[in-house]
């Protein structure tokens, strides 16, 4: 059922996440494991349950009930407000990312049922330019939230992003404000927002909508933070503690509510929705 559908939906996608070939080496336990087995377990290691990065499409299939998904604003793609050039032009860079991923930009939004509950769902596509937030990501997420505010529906956003997209300059930074303002209005109507943090959720994304969940859930051992560890080390020459900026680190410091494995994520989200959403 779900897994069959996943395999079909996923053929040929995301060559970076799980390398081609029958076998894949787990970066966590270093064991060589059978790739199809990894895929059937929602991209996790059968030996140690390491969570590989998962494509946005596959994530949606893993969370949304069969046959209930409807994608919103699927046609939206980036303009080039700054005329940004670095070696190649920004439009060319976007076209490359689109060809590589089969996506228009770094987020997929839509509506569907999660274990029978109607929800709005946004999922970052990390393989599209690092999941970075420019105008398209900001606008699609804002429309998602606004739609759910009007329909009195819960919103779930699954994040995986390096932060704001440099090539759209301050316009990207302002998407942090735009999305957060939309969530404030959603909250004024007493509607539920669940933020799901996956590897990695950093910088401008973590410092805006991803941190604003009524409930914040993370996958195990995801990298989550504001400033990247390398930058921290370079600028302040500080030794970084063991497990710094992992889901477990954030949990210890009181910043997230719970850590859920990918296998239990859908059931966990459904349970939370059942408590906090009154239709």
């Amino acid at each position: 059922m779900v897994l069959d559908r996943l395999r079909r939906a996923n053929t040929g996608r995301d060559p970076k996440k799980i390398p081609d070939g029958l076998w894949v080496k787990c970066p966590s336990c270093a064991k060589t494991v059978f790739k199809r087995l990894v895929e059937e377990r929602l991209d996790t290691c059968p030996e140690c349950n390491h969570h590989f990065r998962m494509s946005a499409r596959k994530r949606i299939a893993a969370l949304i009930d069969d046959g209930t998904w409807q994608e919103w604003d699927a046609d939206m793609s980036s303009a080039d407000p700054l005329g940004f050039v670095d070696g190649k032009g920004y439009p060319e860079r976007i076209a490359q990312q689109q060809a590589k991923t089969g996506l228009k930009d770094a987020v997929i939004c839509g509506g569907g049922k999660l274990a029978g509950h109607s929800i709005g769902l946004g999922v970052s596509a990390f393989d599209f330019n690092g999941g970075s937030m420019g105008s398209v990501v900001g606008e699609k997420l804002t429309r998602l939230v606004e739609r759910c505010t009007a329909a009195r529906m819960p919103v779930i956003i699954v994040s995986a992003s390096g932060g704001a997209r440099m090539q759209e300059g301050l316009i990207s930074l302002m998407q942090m404000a735009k999305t957060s303002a939309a969530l404030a209005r959603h909250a004024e109507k007493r509607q539920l927002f669940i933020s799901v943090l996956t590897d990695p959720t950093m910088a401008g994304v973590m410092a805006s909508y991803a941190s604003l969940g009524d409930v914040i859930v993370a996958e195990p051992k995801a990298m989550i933070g504001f400033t990247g560890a390398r930058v921290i080390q370079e600028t302040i020459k500080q030794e970084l503690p063991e497990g710094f900026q992992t889901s477990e680190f954030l949990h210890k410091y009181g910043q997230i509510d719970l850590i859920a494995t990918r296998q239990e994520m859908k059931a966990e989200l459904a349970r939370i929705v059942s408590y906090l959403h009154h239709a």
Partner: protein
Amino acid sequence: MSNPFDFLEPLVKLEEKITELETLASSTGVDTTREVGSLRETWAGESRRLFAGLTPWQRVMLARHPLRPQSSDYVDHMLDDFVPLAGDRRFGDDEAIITGMGRLGGIPVMLVGQQKGKDVHERKRCNFGMPHPEGYRKAMAKMRVAEKFNLPVIALVNTPGAFPGVEAEERGQSIAIAENIRDMSNLRTPIIVVVIGEGGSGGALGIGVGDRILMLQNSYFSVISPEGCAAILWKDGSKRDLAAERLKLTAGELARFGIVDEAVEEPAGGAHRQPAVMAGLLKDALLKHLRELQALTMDELLERRYRKYRAIGQFIESAGAATAAR
């Protein structure tokens, strides 16, 4: 590395000559009025020429000038009867953000301003203007007071960025900034944001959401520092001048994108030359915007604030041309 302020050298030379002549006059009694007057005219012309042609990188340098007026200078020159307020009521008092009440031309306001520090000691206490989470939470605590008692908020942005450190991460830097952004988006009192120097990314936005965004002419507001951008794109931090140009981070450029509502003119030679004059110009601009905002009902104010941010963004839908957000 050469002196980053080389481009100001012609002005500095003239200033030295003027001082020399004035000293000569006072020590010998020789009348140098005419010579000084003519040098001042030359200076004014030269400064107009120089400032009209500043590159974005040069503006970034001016924004970081060690003598550039800071939040405390604007408190001194612009507000009467200032009452400083400290602490976030949770963890500590972050001096990288000063907060307090004052009267702006008679109107009581809540001031929230990032502060880099003026001497070695203050700079250290202020962490060079890089706030920790408690700084952002302190700012929001005071803004809540402002909301409760109908005081407009004046937020002065001047930070290279939120502090990148282990303790900041432990205490929730992301969350502190995110919650401020959200809560400033619907705080029920007028908010005017002014970038007075550096508008460093999320650390700036953490006190930088409001009804109006003003920028001083020689300040910058950017998603990433020019150095950081150059390091990522060209693996070469020295291409920061090129990065500054590409990022479109100056007041004029950002006004064209509709993000910045007004580029506030600086006195001749830059804000650091005449802090009191600068404060006067900013005060006038603030009073003008405040009057406009105070004429609105609260619902209108909040709706317009929402629309302001809602409209930021450019994208292409279906086969069409680029559209701006609604």
